[in-house]
């Protein structure tokens, strides 16, 4: 328990509560225009998506570009629980996350044997298959979309986001997370050091899918209407941009990338073609001039608060 009350953690906690409180205050006093309220919640959803994709692409080094597929499975499952079974919100969210996790295992087991571009293309294909299935599923309205009552508010979205980030961070900073990182660094050496690489790829993929499903559930229960086309390849690419912009492998980078991209999109929302052209140019320029993204694999951390002696004794830089 004493580990929980380090100066660093207390500062972070205060910061998190402050962000929540200020936005909540602005919401309640109605100073914040609805458009901004929407984008604050979208930022939370984006952060969950980016951080979970980063676990697969950045931490484990498995290149997936079908993340929107898992998001849609979560969105539709939770929408079904909400609409068809009148389940409570928490139940809908859990169901969405679990359904996406199951899909993650089923899809991960066969495809994660593939490497690099091949895996990327396979995940893209699976994302498209999932979309076609929802397009043709009359039970959820098919191509005309599926209406869901909006019950998510800032409190739900924010704390679910904090919980997701914390869970993924804690996983990454453990021996199991290091096993995933070793696959990214050198798969052959990882295997030779006793890491069951297949198992850890599937675990990372499943956890990533689960949180994408949670994000989908939050989205579905906020947006009034979900549509298969929302979860197309462009959505997967958007999430990828957030992760790459922040720096593959950097959790704080993914968070910054998600926030940045959400508000850029909001600023350019009336010029959607320009938004995509700008994003595309940004991506190409980033790859040419700074392929590691803003943060590289580094983290923005408050480790400098620790005393020097302590720093040498332990090394939790990851």
């Amino acid at each position, binding site marked *: 328990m004493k580990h929980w009350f380090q100066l660093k953690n207390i500062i972070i906690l205060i910061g998190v509560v402050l962000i929540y409180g200020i936005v909540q205050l602005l919401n309640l006093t109605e100073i914040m225009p609805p458009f901004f309220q929407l984008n604050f919640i979208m930022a939370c959803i984006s952060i969950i998506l980016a951080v979970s994709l980063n676990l697969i692409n950045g931490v484990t080094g498995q290149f997936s570009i079908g993340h929107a597929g898992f998001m849609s499975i979560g969105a539709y499952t939770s929408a079904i629980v909400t609409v068809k079974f009148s389940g409570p919100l928490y139940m809908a969210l859990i169901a969405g996350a679990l359904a996406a996790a199951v899909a993650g295992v089923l899809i991960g087991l066969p495809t994660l*044997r593939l490497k690099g*571009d091949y895996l990327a*293309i396979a995940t893209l*294909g699976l994302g498209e298959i999932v979309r*076609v299935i929802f397009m043709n599923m009359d039970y959820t309205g098919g191509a005309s979309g599926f209406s869901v009552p909006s019950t998510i508010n800032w409190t739900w979205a924010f704390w679910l986001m904090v919980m997701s980030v914390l869970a993924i961070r804690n996983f990454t900073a453990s021996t199991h997370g290091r096993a995933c990182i070793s696959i990214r660094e050198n798969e052959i050496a990882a295997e030779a050091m006793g890491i069951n690489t297949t198992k850890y790829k599937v675990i990372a993929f499943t956890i990533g899918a689960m949180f994408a499903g949670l994000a989908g559930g939050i989205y579905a229960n906020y947006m009034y209407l979900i549509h298969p086309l929302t979860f197309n390849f462009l959505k997967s690419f958007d999430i990828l941009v957030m992760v790459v912009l922040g720096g593959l492998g950097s959790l704080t980078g993914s968070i910054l990338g998600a926030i940045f991209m959400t508000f850029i999109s909001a600023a350019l929302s009336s010029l959607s073609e320009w938004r995509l*052209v700008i994003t*595309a140019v940004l991506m*190409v320029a980033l790859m040419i001039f700074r*392929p590691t993204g803003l943060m590289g694999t580094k983290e923005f951390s408050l480790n400098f608060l620790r005393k020097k002696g302590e720093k040498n004794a332990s090394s939790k830089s990851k």
Partner: protein
Amino acid sequence: MVSFQQFIQLLVQGVSLGSIYALMALGYTMVYGIIQLINFAHGDVLMIGAYIGWFTITKLHWSFLPALLIAMLGSAILGVLIERIAYKPLRNASRIAVLITAIGVSLFLEYGGMLLFGPQVRTYPPVLPETIYNIAGISFKYGDVVMLVTSVSLMVLLQVVVRYTKVGKAMRAVSLDKDAALLMGIDVNNTISATFAIGSALAAAAGVLFGVYFNQIDPLMGVMPGLKAFIAAVLGGIGLIPGAMAGGLILGLIETLVSGLGGSMWRDAASFFILILVLIIKPNGLFGKNVREKV
């Protein structure tokens, strides 16, 4: 169920569609063979080619063949520009960086195209006679014949170029071993550019044929054919030119049969399903050889 005649009819359509996929798949496979890059923007080069063709036909009032050649030329230049600006600086970067760049270029062309050409669908003028041939109850459109003849001649031409010309030999050498080719005095950069030029020209030809055959074009028209052609290339064994042709035809036939048998909604899913099956069961494609990583 479908009758035998209807079945043959579907085969005819399948071959027409398949020859477009094959033309496109050649570009993917050549570029992959030479720099191991999945050129995501390839489908969008098809779109640009189709627009150049549309412009030459409607605004300049040229006929089919000159329009086709202009589109091929224009797209070849575009292909070389894309390679020089976006891919060349990343020659030694990680595969993921290159893949992201390729997706970026693709989006740039799609939405840049929307800004430039407008998002609306344009109708391709009827440049070919509407003649329909009828042989033993099976009907061929004039367009089917043009499509097949054009794509087969281009593929034969490509084979000749790759086998017998200096550029073709250089391309094969670079795809086998870039460093050795360099030491043998081959200009690797120019060879790679030539590959992009040829691949893009073929994509443009596919684009014009696409426009002529289906009568309509839009800035996102390249996305699906691009992905399908990539699947065709993987199916035939990526990096193999004959594999790409065979893969394109097989995929065209499968898609037409799936739609013809009543599953048109599932056509795209069927292609992706095939892709995943191939990747899992035989990732080197129907005609590919195994390669292993050196430990």
